């Protein structure tokens, strides 16, 4: 076949300046992202939260565990912006430290779900067959028949209270959703002509899976993942609220809320601020997720 190579040997001329395609892609994606104003707001807030979580010790005016029995449940003031709690701790500082827990919980549990869900979903969807239909799908069906919070609760109870275990539990609960989503995407894509073309050019299965199908399914996965992060933050807070999440004295928004609920009338700020922060965080991650959806959708200019 070597003769084909030398069929013609014209000079190859490249006209104009060639931009790095990835940079260009990135630019257009950013362009799409920035079109969605709310997503930008969400993104900025998310970024601030991450910043807050990373540098909490420099931002928080007090130690989150510093107790002051003279100042129990004092309302918001210049010294204590968000007031103090039932042990006289500064709620503002605790909220800032709580960001760490919440973000960690969101990211790690979704990370776990992705780490398990992506390979299983890919393989299950691509190869189909007995294992896919009768084992993996039925197990995910069964897992999805559980109310997620109940499953998370039971798992957290089994594993024992604590942030680490709560994250594992939430991760496990999220996994079947990802398996389903990824499998469905793979099923849709494996019939697409570009995959067939990939096979027709003699690519190996793993290469098609990892280099062709996976990147193309990334958009819905990313969107689902951001939404799942938001959901996982709420779940972690719920578990903490029920006493199965973060352990004291580590401040977590969920357990702060749980504590605050007992003092709704005496000190409403105790429940208010951690709640507001969960809400804002989840909201901005959701907004950001919407933005990512737009960003990854090549149909939008």
């Amino acid at each position: 076949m070597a003769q084909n190579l030398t069929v013609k040997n014209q000079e190859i001329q490249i006209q104009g300046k060639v931009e790095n395609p990835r940079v260009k892609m990135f630019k257009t994606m950013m362009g799409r992202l920035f079109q969605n104003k709310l997503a930008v707001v969400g993104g900025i807030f998310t970024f601030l939260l991450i910043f807050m979580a990373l540098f909490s010790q420099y931002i928080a005016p007090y130690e989150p565990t510093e107790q002051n029995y003279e100042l129990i449940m004092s309302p918001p003031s210049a010294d204590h912006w968000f007031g103090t709690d039932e042990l006289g701790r500064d709620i503002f500082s605790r909220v800032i430290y709580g960001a760490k827990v919440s973000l960690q919980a969101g990211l790690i549990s979704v990370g776990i779900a992705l780490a398990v869900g992506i390979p299983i979903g890919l393989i299950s969807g691509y190869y189909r067959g007995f294992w896919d239909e009768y084992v993996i799908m039925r197990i995910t069906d069964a897992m999805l028949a559980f109310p997620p919070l109940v499953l998370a609760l039971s798992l957290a109870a089994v594993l024992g209270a604590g942030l680490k275990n709560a994250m594992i539990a939430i991760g496990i609960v999220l996994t079947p959703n990802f398996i389903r989503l990824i499998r469905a995407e793979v099923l849709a894509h494996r019939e697409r002509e570009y995959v067939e073309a990939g096979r027709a050019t003699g690519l190996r299965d793993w290469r098609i899976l990892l280099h062709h199908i996976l990147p193309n399914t990334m958009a819905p996965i990313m969107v689902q993942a951001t939404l799942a992060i938001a959901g996982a933050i709420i779940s972690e807070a719920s578990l903490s609220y029920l006493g199965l999440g973060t352990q004291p004295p580590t401040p977590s928004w969920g357990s702060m809320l749980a504590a605050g609920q007992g003092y709704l009338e005496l000190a409403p700020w105790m429940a208010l601020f951690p709640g507001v922060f969960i809400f804002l965080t989840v909201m901005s991650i959701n907004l950001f997720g919407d933005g990512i959806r737009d960003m990854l959708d090549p149909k939008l200019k």
Partner: protein
Amino acid sequence: MLAKEKQQQQQQQQQPLLEVKGLKKYFSTGGTGFLNKNKKYVKAVDDLSFYVNEGETLGIVGESGCGKSTMGRAILQLQKPTEGQVLFQGKDISKFNAKQIRELRKDIQIIFQDPFGSLNQRMTVGSMLSEIVRVHKIVPKKEELKYIQQLLQDVGLNPEHYWRYPHEFSGGQRQRISIARALAVQPKLIVCDEAVSALDVSVQAQVLNLLQKLKNDYHLTYIFISHDLSVVKHISDRVGVMYLGKMMELSNKHMMYENPLHPYTKALFSAIPEVTTEGKKQRVILKGDVPSPLDIPTGCCFHTRCPLATDKCKMEMPEFREAEKGHFVACHYAGV
């Protein structure tokens, strides 16, 4: 023209490049459940036999759903045939293992219809092509870029398109990319599955010319699948007509277009709206719809719509026979 025919005849005496014998592809419907007793089959391709000689273009026409694409996929072993042999250069590739099939990909390629769906949206043209080149080790790494850019020029694109994503191209350009992808491994045979159907006429003409040119430049053999008879006729040397998974008629295109034997072929020809300045032509309008491939009529599968159908047609399946030299037809009455 005459020389070309002679050459073809010589080749016929040699071994054909690809030979398909009794190819069948059935799809079972209704899932794979264990509780499913009455499984039905879509007989998408049912007992196809034909050959393709090196350097020629075999056109396949037929209405939507008649199994053209399935045939193409079965030939490439993208879908394992249910039955039958596919001989490529004398070797039965339907028995190949995964590794052999990967090797085979260097020789047989396919171009798909959908200029949007057949390219990976998340890869640049360059990375897509270089992946193939690398996997099959077509050229040494340092020549890769040059090789691919050469390829892009050959299919009428610019070298700088190497760095572009598919969505930045028009339909016709994308089809050129697909062609480049198929050419990248320097195959012997390319199956074009409705490669120009989605394109506008002006662009279609451009791509058809390109395919012709590449065929000569790269010494290619085509199986050209289309539902457009004029396009098939334009590009092919021989033409096969399919109906409900079966080959109805197969012959040299001149014989076929000048003297179609099968009533279906005749009806098909007469149904094509043609640009004429004279009055409207006399046409055979077939009654009814194409039957569902789930329950194909008994006997001759065309008898439900055939203006000439007799009781024999309902009962007996006609044999795919050579009515004239090189002119095969599956009809009890044609050309007798």
